């Protein structure tokens, strides 16, 4: 028995820890890949320690997790005791049901509703700057979704414990409060602690809820990591995870060894002492951290200027990679020299245009700089969310921008946006896995080639996925005719059985590890993949039927508190030094003339990359590019078409996704659970009937005896 249980434990923990060991392994990878190990290196640890964003994020995450776990544990434990004492069944059910709402809601609903709630709070109390209440909002949101887990952990134990102990204590002279603190609490302590650990864990890992609530000056680690999924999550994040896990593991071992030496007796007292010490330490650390976090917020009130920048993840040389400079720090310095005033940049990041939109549209957060794509700029202008200003006059460095990127369809008069990057998508293929004859056509059709069934990838977002089909068949990607979209859907349905999957950033790992052979993606990212050490030989082409051109541009939201500093920032980003640094870091093409002519940049990127990135621009740049661009870029959907595309995308995901065993197994489980429940109630009923029968018989027997006696004694 002992032996089998050891084996069992061994197997379960092995499965739990193999992915963790893999994670640790890749944190030491020599290349950027997180799917192929090419050699040992400490590069990512060096990068991590040079990365100011990562440490700020880590600090924020820990502060939040500790404080919210503490708060949730205190409120939750008291609540569990209170709920237990409530005798009215309906009130009890009502309270517990409400408590569990945040647990039952998908995170995104909790996040969204909280965001709308805080927007209302700010409107009611006339709070102008979300940064002021942002941390409190995060703390409230995290505590709220941790609460049900604490209660769910503590309540069963209180139920089991019953009243007898605390009643005894009260009979012996305890007040109800001291009976709770001195008798009940020590008894329920293990479940209180496990509730606290669970709350801490949940808060630590939460992305979705924080995403909607986070103020510009408080980015947590999960937010930082998820925002990288537009491009790629770098191994320095693996390094950070490794440090966290290993540190905790070592602490665990030490505490285990130490407690070994102590006497085994007086266990309860020791547990209580450890718990008190732990709470004290946590509280002290939390206060220290909180004062740190607070200092950032307070600083914004003094003479310094704050600028809230909201950008794509991995989309600016922000010092997160030791190879490149930190343009934000460069700007802070520049600003101080020019104006003699300190400026603080709150830099935070997002992963999709739609995420950015929902944040700008629904929340009370104000940003000074955002960098959306073309069609999203159109949408933001329509919704009246962007500040209009005279770009040419206000941004002197605007002359550096190639004329081809001015007077674009989304901003005809150049009053909303300043181009930041541009690029195109095309087909990436594995040269070893794809036959040359299939490449000759240079067509999107290769994504429908049955020869490569199971080796083809497709975008996991409706906009880009539909576009591949539409470009292939010469359909208008901005069509307002529903039938055109139906036609594109049928193409995607045909393609589905051939696909290995619909992916976003996983494409980096899948292509560099040789899991997949063909994928559509952006040219800048292809260059990163092709240059990844240990990757197979990857090729790229622009399909002849036409490709998507995108432009990402810097804009100032209407909600900006500091548009003048924002303009200064935009202007600085167009200067040669900053623009070159960014272009090298991002790897996408730059619309800045100073960049494409900069020799360091050309050297760094290499001829191959420069050709791919820039030679696709027609010779007669100004007119031709805009013409080409105008026909193949994405435009903002009308609400009807947006709904239509959403529905079609869902249809695509539903079609042919049945794996019969899922139905069978789940039905079996439900049936057997129901069967057990019915059997149990049956047994109980039968038993209670039996008891009643027995009682009756006994009574009968008694009465017979009595009547016998009565008969015998006349």
């Amino acid at each position: 028995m002992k032996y089998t249980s050891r084996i069992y434990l061994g197997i379960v923990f092995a499965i739990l820890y193999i992915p963790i060991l893999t994670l640790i392994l890749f944190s030491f990878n020599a290349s950027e890949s997180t799917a192929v190990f090419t050699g040992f290196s400490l590069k990512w640890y060096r990068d991590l320690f040079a990365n100011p964003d990562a440490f700020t994020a880590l600090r924020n995450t820990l502060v939040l997790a500790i404080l919210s776990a503490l708060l949730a544990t205190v409120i939750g434990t008291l609540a569990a005791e209170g709920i237990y004492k409530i005798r009215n069944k309906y009130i009890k059910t009502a309270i517990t049901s409400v408590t569990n709402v945040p647990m039952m809601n998908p995170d995104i609903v909790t996040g969204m509703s909280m965001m709308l709630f805080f927007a209302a709070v700010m409107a009611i109390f006339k709070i102008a700057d979300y940064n002021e209440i942002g941390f409190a909002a995060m703390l409230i949101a995290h505590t709220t979704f941790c609460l049900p887990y604490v209660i769910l952990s503590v309540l069963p134990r209180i139920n089991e414990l019953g009243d007898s102990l605390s009643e005894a204590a009260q009979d012996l002279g305890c007040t109800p409060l001291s009976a709770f603190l001195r008798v009940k609490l020590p008894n329920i302590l293990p479940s209180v602690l496990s509730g606290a650990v669970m709350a801490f864990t949940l808060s630590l890992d939460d992305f979705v809820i924080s995403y909607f609530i986070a103020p510009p000056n408080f980015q947590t680690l999960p937010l930082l990591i998820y925002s990288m999924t537009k491009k790629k999550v770098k191994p320095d994040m693996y390094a950070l995870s490794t440090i966290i896990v290993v540190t905790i593991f070592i602490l665990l071992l030490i505490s285990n060894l130490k407690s070994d030496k102590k006497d085994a007796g007086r266990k309860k007292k020791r547990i209580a002492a450890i718990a008190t010490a732990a709470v004290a330490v946590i509280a002290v650390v939390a206060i220290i951290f909180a004062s740190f976090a607070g200092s950032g917020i307070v600083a914004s009130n003094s003479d310094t200027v704050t600028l809230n920048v909201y950008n794509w993840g991995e989309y600016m040389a922000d010092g997160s990679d030791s190879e490149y400079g930190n343009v934000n720090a460069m700007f802070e310095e520049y600003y101080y020299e020019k104006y003699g005033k300190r400026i603080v940049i709150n830099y935070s990041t997002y992963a999709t245009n739609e995420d950015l939109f929902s944040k700008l549209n629904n929340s009370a957060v104000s940003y000074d700089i955002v960098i959306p794509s073309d069609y999203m700029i159109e949408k933001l202008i329509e919704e009246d969310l962007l500040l209009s200003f005279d770009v040419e006059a206000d941004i002197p460095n605007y002359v550096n921008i190639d004329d081809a990127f001015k007077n674009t369809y989304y901003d005809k008069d150049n009053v909303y946006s300043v181009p930041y990057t541009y690029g195109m998508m095309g087909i990436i293929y594995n040269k070893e896995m794809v036959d040359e004859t299939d490449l000759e056509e240079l067509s999107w059709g290769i994504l429908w080639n049955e020869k490569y069934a199971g080796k083809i990838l497709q975008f996991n977002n409706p906009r880009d996925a539909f576009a591949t089909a539409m470009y292939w068949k010469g359909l208008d990607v901005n069509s307002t005719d529903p039938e055109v979209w139906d036609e594109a859907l049928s193409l995607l349905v045909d393609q589905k059985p051939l696909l290995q999957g619909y992916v976003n950033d996983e494409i980096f790992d899948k292509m560099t590890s040789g899991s997949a052979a063909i994928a559509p993606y952006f040219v800048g990212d292809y260059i990163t993949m092709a240059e990844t050490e240990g990757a197979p030989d990857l090729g790229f082409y622009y399909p002849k039927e036409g490709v998507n051109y995108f432009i990402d541009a810097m804009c100032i939201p209407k909600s900006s508190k500091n548009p003048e500093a924002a303009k200064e920032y935009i202007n600085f980003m167009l200067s040669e030094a900053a623009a070159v640094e960014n272009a090298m870091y991002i790897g996408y093409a730059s619309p800045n003339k100073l960049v494409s002519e900069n020799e360091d940049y050309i050297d760094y990127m290499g001829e191959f990359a420069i050709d791919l990135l820039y030679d696709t621009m027609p010779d007669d740049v100004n007119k031709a590019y805009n013409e080409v661009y105008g026909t193949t870029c994405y435009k903002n959907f009308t609400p009807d078409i947006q709904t239509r595309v959403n529905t079609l995308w869902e249809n695509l995901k539903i079609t042919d996704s049945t794996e019969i065993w899922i139905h069978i197994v789940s039905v079996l489980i439900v049936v057997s659970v129901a069967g057990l429940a019915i059997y149990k109630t049956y047994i109980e009923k039968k038993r209670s009937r039996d008891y009643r029968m027995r009682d009756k018989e006994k009574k009968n027997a008694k009465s017979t005896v009595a009547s016998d006696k009565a008969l015998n004694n006349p």
Partner: protein
Amino acid sequence: MKNKKSLMSSIMAAPHIFWAVLFIVLPLIIVVFYAFTDANGNFSFSNIASLGDYAPIFGLSLELAVIATAICLLIGYPLAYIISKASPKSQKFFMMLLMLPMWTNLLIRTYSIMAILDDGGFLNSIFGAVFNVDEPLFHIVGTKGAVIFGMVYDFLPYMVLPIYTCISKIDKHMWEAASDLGCTPIQTLIKVILPLSMSGIISGVTMVLVPSISTFYISQKLGGGTFEVIGDTIERQFVTGALNVGAAISLIMMILILISITVMNKFSDEDGGIIV
């Protein structure tokens, strides 16, 4: 006297009730409001009416979550039982060991699972080298099995924790009494320990079932994006600006979960009905 005492104790729930009304009920009202209005804020049933389209997605999400929960219970119960019988020192150690993987980021953890299970991942490379084949032997990522694996991997601690807490609190004399009365260890487990740990099981099932239904990153990454679960759908509705439809879907989902948990509690045991 008795009433007064329980009233005093009920006051302990007051901070929570205050908190719940302010930060749970009010935001919930916002969700309900959105579910029953159109984009212009007018009252409308069209969101609720359109929900029929999502039935297959609802169904699939439920099925996956039910299977994942069942597996978690099957793996987690013995685990909790074995751990609870270890020495107090190792108990603490094992429980922390169980929670530790959760302290790495969910996304990075999922990528690491992919690096192992993918067509070109470690598992296939190793077996490919052993059996000298080029083609991947196991196609795991992109199937529903992979999604279930991911759910079990991520939510197992939420199953083990409450069950363990429950079992470890069972009076040790119960074991002796049972064996004195002639129970084999297996019989003791089934007839004595299992019924006594029922409240832990119910907590565990709830804590695993609910997040499994609404998760979306696991299914997106490990499922290869070839099918959708309800979490994906709600997310897309929200980010593409269709707040009202998203709110309607989540409202219905909440009601469904509430009903299923209530039913489950009815059957659980006499006093367990109040856990959720």
